[in-house]
């Protein structure tokens, strides 16, 4: 380890120093609910690769102008040096005094990519061009112009691997506008998290037979008795359910929808799946929630220690999936901002 560190210091001293400084600064970034203003002293600025190349270019040009004692060459070179210095201030000012606010974060299933929406507000009377956001040491995720007095919504993608709360990490708001010679950035951590549902299990396994008011769930091919029409695609729908014929015409995937002749109510029960481990059980339940919702069934959810009464609709589906996502979730992963993301 020592050797590697030494090698790194020797081979890339600037990068090493930069990493150390970044780590130091990032450790001091406060997690805030937002809106977070970006004051002057929180905007950091360094030359880009092009900026360094430009500096070398001007140096060569100064030498050429000296060699030829050429006044116009001096004038051009000095103008370019001035331009570089002006660009530094412009790049810096392009970021100073923006306001960063958390936006809504749509829940995703594990294995999908969470998109944290970040709102960048420009309170100045001048348009800001090319303001970007991105994770540290990763390419810029999104870039947008922010008109005067306006707000731009940018999305930061982050792969969601495990169910539960996925908190946003420290990210950078940056800009290189107008000349790309300098990179100005600030580190921020917004108090936002994405709710990650359990990944739905592959379809195939039948839900338990319905009990109670609605009586039996019909037959071995559930919910296929009557074609009711098409509805928009929702995440979790299987490719088989997609109505491919209408795809070229409508330009968006539609899903075949079948309706039971009468509403039935049934329970999706944790205890129905004794042979599976906890995570697989949650996945299977998630699949069933989706299928039941897709068939417009009225369903309830029973988990150890909690119970959601049968109902249906988007809100109910979310409540069920949320309960599955947060079921005995690791304490560390629980987001303090649960209220916001929900």
């Amino acid at each position: 380890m020592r050797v590697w560190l030494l090698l790194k210091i020797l081979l890339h001293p600037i990068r090493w120093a930069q990493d150390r400084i970044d780590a130091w600064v990032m450790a001091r970034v406060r997690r805030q609910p937002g809106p977070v203003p970006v004051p002057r002293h929180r905007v950091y600025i360094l030359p880009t690769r092009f900026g360094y190349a430009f500096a070398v270019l001007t140096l060569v040009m100064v030498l050429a102008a000296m060699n030829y004692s050429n006044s116009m060459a001096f004038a051009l070179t000095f103008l370019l040096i001035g331009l570089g210095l002006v660009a530094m201030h412009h790049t810096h000012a392009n970021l100073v005094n923006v306001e960063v606010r958390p936006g809504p974060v749509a829940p995703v299933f594990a294995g999908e990519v969470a998109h944290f929406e970040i709102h960048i507000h420009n309170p100045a009377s001048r348009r800001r061009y090319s303001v970007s956001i991105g994770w540290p040491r990763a390419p810029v995720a999104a870039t947008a112009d922010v008109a005067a007095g306006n707000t731009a919504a940018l999305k930061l993608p982050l792969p969601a691997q495990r169910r539960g709360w996925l908190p946003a990490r420290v990210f950078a708001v940056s800009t290189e506008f107008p000349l790309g010679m300098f990179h100005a950035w600030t580190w921020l951590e917004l108090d936002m998290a994405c709710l990650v549902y359990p990944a739905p299990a592959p379809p195939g396994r039948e839900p338990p037979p319905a009990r109670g008011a609605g009586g039996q769930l019909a037959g071995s091919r559930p919910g296929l008795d009557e074609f009711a029409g098409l509805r928009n695609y929702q995440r979790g729908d299987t490719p088989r359910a997609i109505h491919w014929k209408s795809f070229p015409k409508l330009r968006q995937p539609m899903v075949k929808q079948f309706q039971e002749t009468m509403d039935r109510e049934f329970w999706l029960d944790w205890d129905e799946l004794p042979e599976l481990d906890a995570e697989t059980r949650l996945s299977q339940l998630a699949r069933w929630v989706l299928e039941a919702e897709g068939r417009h069934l009225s369903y309830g959810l029973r988990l150890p220690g909690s119970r959601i009464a049968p109902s249906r609709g988007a809100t109910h589906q979310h409540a069920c999936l949320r309960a599955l996502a947060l079921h005995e979730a690791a304490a560390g992963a629980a987001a303090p901002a649960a209220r916001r993301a929900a």
Partner: protein
Amino acid sequence: MKTTAGDYLAQSSLLRLLAVLALVVAPHLWRMPPWIGAAVVAIGVWRGLAAWRQWPLPPQWLKVAAAVLAFIAVQVTYGRVNGQHAGSALLVVMLALKLTEMRSRRDVLVVVALCYFTMLTHFLFSQEMWTVLYLAACSVTVTAVLIEANHPGAALAPRVTLRLGAAMVGLALPLMLALFILFPRVPGPLWGLPSDAGAARSGISDSMSPGDISSLIQSDAVAFRVVFRGPPPAMKERYWRGPVLSYFDGRRWSAPFRGDDYFRLYDPTTRLNAFARTRAELAGSGVPYEVMLEPHRQNWLFALDLPDARQLPPETHLTGYYQLLSRPLVKEQLRYALVSHPQYRLEPEMTEQWQRSARRLSPERNPRAQALARQWRAEGLDDAQVVERALRMFRTQEFFYTLEPPRLGPDPVDEFLFETRRGFCEHYASAFTVLMRAAGVSARVVVGYQGGELNEVGGYYVVRQADAHAWSEVWRAGSGWVRVDPTAAVAPSRVESGLSAALEPAELPGFLRRRGLSTFDYLRLRADVAWDYVNVAWDQWVLGFNPERQLELLSRFGLGDWQRMILALTVTITGLMALIGLLALRQARTAVPRDEALRLWRSATRTLAALGLPQGATEGPRDYATRVARARPELAGAIGRLAQAYVAARYLDQRAREAELAAALRALRAASGSPRGRQTAA
């Protein structure tokens, strides 16, 4: 580096880049061989069409082949690939070839850097005043291209990028000026100039054959300008001495070669030529003056007959011919001060050997002229009478002064004297000197300029290539070398009032036809005079801003050494940078709403945000007030009044409620204990 989708260059951006490239390259193409212009234009047009029609870009091997071909073509055209001409040609061709592989924004950055360098190379060829426009136009447009390249997504409108580019260049101007004036200049060159450095210039040379000078006077280019520090000498005394030609091969007069004793007799410790110091006797009062010599890429300078050897400018010396030489070649404008004495005796005593060498003629060339001179001698004329006789011949016989003399064969002096009898100053000077030598009088040819025209605006004299002249000097014991101008015998007005008076108007080059001026021509002449003055100022203060001039200027402000210059530069740049930074931050600060009610409300929400109660993005004033009241009951009264007044003032358009709003804000601040509240309340 990978190219992501956002990196691809929009078609409109590419077309704009091509337009800017055309602007940057245009003045280069003017100067370069036609094949380069054709190739560059063809590549540019093809690239534009390729973007328009979505043609594929050429494969790698073709691009490599084109680059190799370009190298070979430049090598064949110029005989080299480095140096000023070939180097800039190669740069322009490579810039065009870069277009064939340009598809992403990253490529634009390379092209922009090349553009800046291409602009620089243009200044090596021309630094006239219009190049400032070139500099301004190119830097704004190239910067606009760079701005566009740094804006991923939809292309910005050219109006936006150009305005921003112009604003940035405008802000960079003060920095440029500070650097231009204060950056300590180092005397160049640092590593030696390529042998083809500088722009090609015409001018007199150190040899003279028939037709040389008459072709030169077609040019209205300025040779040098002169400021007299006292009363200027009369026109007919303004002989500007250049190369002295004493070797004649029958057709061509040439300067002494380097091994000539007169060139060697130079004492570097005193910077005085041993011969010159002892051999010229200056009389009368001196005429002090300053010459601004245009670069002619030679090492001789021009001095009024006859310069004082004790007051020579640095890095110059006089030869035994009293020719003023500069140590380095004059590659940029040179200013030097001299004192000349119109009354002088040059070399009143000369050794027999030198007298003989100044009488040398090859006997088989121009035999008729030599025979004529010997016949004069045979008539028993002495040296002075021979001179008089020759001048009388030019004056009384039918000799014509013309710019377009007939072409002369192998014995030009014979042909001129006995057949054509039409010639220009070089014919007369050459023929006269040959006659003198044949008659046994030591004589030589001097080339230089005669006359000069007063620029009334600037109070200086302009000597143009058109004033080029050739005359003779004959040596007599006791009086030394005496100037004899045989042209004056034929066309006295040439020497007394200049070329335009001596020639028929139809023969004059266009710029010299000044007889019978119309009002328009007169005004144009005045404008020319004023323009020349502006050019002099440009040359003097911008192009001629060299280490000496910088030192001279800055010494007046107590910045006479480079440490102080650096200090002053640092202070100035820091100050300017602070100003520019303030200006940039001003544009980034929160806009003050024009609506007073909104302004007061914002100020209230800021106060509350500092207490940890920011207004939500989607929260209306009433909901917000309710939330604040619940969280901080002690503020409930103030925030309630505030929200009510704000809603009334802003949404019900009740201006009168603004005062109430302000009062509520003060109350809120007082209640919340905010420092600003205490100040405002006090």
